[in-house]
C-alpha cells in the first residue's frame, strides 16, 4: 500500500437473524427473507418469502399470489410500467408496508400483470438494512447496530 493505510476497525453490528438461502424451482440457491406485507385497506398482512435482489432499484416486487391476497383490500392504487431491458412491463401498484424482521417500511409494491414473478426485496428497502450475504454457507444474516 502506498500513501494510505487501511485500518481494520471492530464491527459494531450484531447479528439479529440468520436465514438459509431458499431453493428456486430451477434448483438454484438464492438469498431470501421472510416478509409481511401489510395493506391498510385489507387490514391484514400477507406473509411470504422474498428474494433479496440488489439489482432491483425499487422497494418491492409482488408476486401474483401475493397480489391476489392484496387485491382483497380493493383495486390497486395505480398502474405503471417498469423498464426491464428492452421491455416495459405493465404493473399494478399497491401502497403497502413491508416488515423485515421487526422493522416496517412504507413502500410501493409493484405487481407485474403477467404471472411467473417472485416477490422481491429491492434496493428501496435493502439500503436501510445491514445484510451479510454468506454465499459459501448459503446464509443471509441480518445485523443491527449495538
Amino acid at each position: 500500500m502506498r500513501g494510505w493505510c487501511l485500518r481494520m476497525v471492530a464491527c459494531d453490528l450484531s447479528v439479529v437473524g440468520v436465514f438459509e438461502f431458499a431453493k428456486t424451482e430451477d434448483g438454484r440457491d438464492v438469498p431470501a427473507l421472510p416478509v409481511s406485507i401489510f395493506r391498510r385497506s385489507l387490514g391484514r398482512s400477507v406473509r411470504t418469502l422474498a428474494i433479496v435482489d440488489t439489482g432491483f432499484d425499487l422497494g418491492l416486487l409482488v408476486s401474483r399470489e401475493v397480489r391476489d391476497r392484496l387485491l382483497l383490500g380493493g383495486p390497486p392504487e395505480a398502474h405503471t410500467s417498469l423498464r426491464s431491458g428492452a421491455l416495459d412491463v405493465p404493473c399494478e401498484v399497491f401502497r403497502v408496508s413491508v416488515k423485515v424482521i421487526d422493522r416496517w417500511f412504507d413502500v410501493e409494491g409493484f405487481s407485474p400483470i403477467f404471472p411467473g414473478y417472485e416477490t422481491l426485496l429491492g434496493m428501496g428497502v435493502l439500503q436501510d438494512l445491514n445484510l451479510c450475504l454468506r454465499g459459501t454457507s448459503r446464509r443471509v444474516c441480518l445485523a443491527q447496530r449495538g
Partner: protein
Amino acid sequence: MDVSVVKKILWSLSLSPKPINHLAREAGVGWKTCEKYLEGLKLCGVVEETVTTRERVFSVRRSRGDWRFPHMSRIAGNKVELVDEKPSR
C-alpha cells in the same frame, strides 16, 4: 410495424433466446414477416443475433446495468398466507 407484434417478440425473447420459426409462431406472423421485424429490432440495437450451423438464434441485447426481470426464479414451495399483523402506529 405492428407494435403488438414487436411486444410479443420482445416478450418471448425476454424469456429465452429463440430461433425465427419459434418467434414467428408465438407472435402469430409468418417466418418472413418475423425476420423483417427482427432485422429492424437488430438495427435498433434491441436484439442480437447468433448464427449457428442450423439456425439463426435471436436474443434481447443486454447492457451492463440492466435489471433483468428474474424470470423462472420462483422459490420452490413458497407459502403465501394472510396473517393478523400490522404496523404499530
